[in-house]
């Protein structure tokens, strides 16, 4: 549906080859494409207009750098300006000051507050060493309280006992008291979803704020929100003076232009993004990465970081040694598989690779997570000896492995064949490495 902005710009600039400077006319043509890209990404019209004016000022008369084509040059300016607008660094959650720290989540219905509360609790518990306390203050939506209770059970975080008959303001006040007594140091308030123009309901939020003085008031917004994101953010900010934003449902194919709109009207930082239904699918927000995404250019940095998080450097070195000596066994293969799965779902990983979203053939590609599970099951059903020396696996061993893993002999055969091929490939790669030829990773992305 969406064509890559880089390609569009490249075609605009085709006739521009050899020019030393960007003229106003060139820029105007290019910016028209940028404007469409931003509008299709749901960035607010007015925000787009202001933004493009700034880009134009910067771009006109600029020398075209030798290393870049004019198209790349414009993209670079646009991207830098986008990053600039989104704010350079992401500030941490403010948990300083009084104990317990109180975090209040607000937003429209269906933006994902309850799930995000649980994700945030898990984040604080496992990555910040905190003792969070979840507070269901949504007494309106049927079963909202049960939902948070169940999520609390899943992540083993205590949940305040509220009942639909209670007053939300009282719930929050009592819960903070209880947290203080019981020694929890971070209270997360899950408020009911509400329309930003519902004055009565907005008043309730103001009352909660006045009663418990939250350190953080986070607006939870859906990444798929359209032009209205501006009004929503404006009203919530006006009523509550929010401290930050959490953007949810970022794992889909929405380009998240709402992020730019919200940031532009509130001037408040986006602190987290929700990237999946699992309770650890909450990432710290990186302005530079969403800039690429809004422009339709992928997110390599997040991918690299994910890989770094899950790959132990020592182990990686060990693996490299093994690869060089061509001692890569099925045991190592299994280890790699587990690591990949730790990085998240395959789809999530693939979506971060630039251009991947645009490839039509790949859009319909079925990323089968189950296949990985089966492969692991097959390897698990081998004896240690078999894993180290797969060549000893004969017909009867194959049958046993298939039976043990609940698969078929054909599948076992396929795995062994693929493993053999992989080994051959690794051999070729390592040979290349020895000859000193470096594979230029960057070239893959252009």
């Amino acid at each position, binding site marked *: 549906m969406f064509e890559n902005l880089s390609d569009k710009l490249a075609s605009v600039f085709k006739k521009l080859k050899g020019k030393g400077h960007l003229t106003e006319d060139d820029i105007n043509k290019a910016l028209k494409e940028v404007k469409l890209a931003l509008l299709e990404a*749901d960035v607010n019209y007015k925000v787009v207009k202001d933004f493009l004016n700034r880009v134009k000022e910067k771009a006109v008369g600029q020398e075209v750098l030798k290393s870049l084509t004019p198209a790349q040059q414009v993209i670079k300016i646009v991207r830098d300006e986008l990053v600039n607008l989104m704010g350079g660094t992401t500030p941490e959650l403010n948990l300083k000051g009084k104990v317990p720290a109180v975090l209040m989540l607000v937003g*429209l219905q269906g933006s994902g507050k309850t799930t995000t509360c649980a994700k945030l609790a898990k984040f604080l518990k496992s990555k910040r060493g905190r003792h969070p306390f979840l507070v269901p203050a949504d007494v309106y939506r049927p079963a909202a309280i049960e939902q948070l209770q169940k999520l609390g059970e899943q992540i083993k975080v205590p949940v305040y006992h509220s009942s639909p008959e209670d007053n939300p303001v009282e719930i929050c006040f009592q819960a903070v008291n209880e947290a203080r007594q019981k020694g929890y140091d971070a209270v997360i308030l899950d408020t009911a979803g509400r329309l930003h123009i519902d004055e009565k309901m907005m008043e309730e939020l103001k009352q909660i704020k006045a009663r418990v003085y939250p350190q953080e008031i986070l607006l939870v917004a859906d990444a798929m929100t359209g032009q209205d994101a501006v009004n929503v953010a404006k009203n919530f900010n006006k009523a509550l003076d929010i401290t930050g934003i959490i953007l949810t449902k970022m794992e889909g194919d929405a380009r998240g232009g709402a992020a730019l709109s919200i940031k532009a009207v509130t001037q408040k930082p986006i602190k987290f993004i929700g990237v999946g239904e699992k309770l650890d699918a909450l990432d710290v927000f990186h302005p530079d990465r969403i800039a690429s995404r809004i422009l339709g250019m992928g997110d390599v940095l997040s991918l690299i970081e994910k890989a770094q998080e899950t790959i132990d450097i020592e182990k990686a070195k060990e693996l490299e040694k093994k690869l060089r000596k061509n001692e890569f066994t099925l045991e190592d293969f299994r280890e790699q598989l587990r690591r990949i799965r730790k990085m998240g779902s395959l789809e999530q990983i693939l979506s971060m690779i630039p251009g991947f979203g645009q490839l039509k053939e790949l859009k319909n590609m079925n990323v089968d997570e189950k296949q990985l599970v089966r492969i692991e099951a097959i390897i698990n059903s081998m004896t240690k000896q078999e894993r180290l020396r797969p060549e000893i696996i004969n017909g009867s061993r194959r049958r046993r492995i298939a039976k043990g893993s609940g698969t078929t002999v054909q599948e076992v055969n396929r795995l062994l064949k693929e493993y053999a091929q992989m080994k051959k490939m690794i051999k070729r790669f390592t040979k290349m490495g020895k000859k000193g030829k470096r594979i230029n990773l960057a070239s893959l992305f252009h």
Partner: protein
Amino acid sequence: MFKWFKRKKEKREAEGQEIIKKNEAMKSEEKQPEGIKMEPDQAEKAGEREQKEGKSGFGFINRLKQRLSKTRQALTSRIDGLFLGKKQIDEEVLEELEEILIMADLGVKATQELIQTITKKVSHKEINNVEELKKVLKEEIFKMISINRPDFDIERQRPFVVMMVGVNGVGKTTTIAKLAKYYYDQGKKVLLVAADTFRAAAIEQLQAWAQRVGVDIYSQQSGADPAAVAFDGVQLAKNKGYDIVFIDTAGRLHTKINLMEELKKIKRVIQKIVPAAPHEIFLVLDATTGQNATSQTKLFNEALGITGIIMTKLDGTAKGGILVSVAHEFRIPIHFIGIGEKMDDLKPFDPEAFVEALF
């Protein structure tokens, strides 16, 4: 109003006997005992609450107009302002018109089409002033959203099976409750099937709604195979002679292939019981959603063949312009729109009234 309440009470008594029979049937089939739940007390309470809220005396168009006033303000007042001090429609005016349409979430494609049509008419001197521009805009938008939809005729077959799908947080469960009430009030025998077994407390949420509305629900425990729940639910509906069945599915992003496969499976298995089912597959879209609604419609449609669209949350400041763009691009009829949180705030979509309310 009193009559309405009385009718409900009479029906409840008749319904109560049914339930007892059903519970016996359930036991003999060794199904989950909590499969069907209803406490008359609770339902009575819900009835009273509805009573208190009362029914507004506005006609449908008036009410829609009132609800969409924000949209109307945003669109028409600006279009009126557009021509102040302007004698002719020039480049600047068209650019401002583009802004207005984009800001209403009509999307780049639909907006460009409208602008092109208008530009052409301006150059042919068919549009000379603001009134004419408004008239043409209205006509063009009406053309885009009016799609012949076959009547949503639940008498076609019993049970009439409706499957609800959509991304997370668009309001599927609440919409089911509203639809259930709509048909329950018409004296239909309604069954809700809780096939969202994934999200925490989704089953409890649907159960609470079933109680409030006073209809039956079939559910299994959380984590059960949604296709199995749907299968058993439709089986039950067929055996017990329900008129209409609503299957609530878990919200899922349209890009998750495995989860889309799960929906296809639900569709497949219920066809084993009722070959023509699901008679309707409704995609629920959130009016605050931007251009991604197009992608949602495309992928859900490719996977399942969507028969109709329900657009929720049109009562905020969101302009719901994406509705124009989705209807135009996919030619899938819009069946209902949600314009508020009250139980009767779900209305059959009327393109004429919608455009009328916009301008």
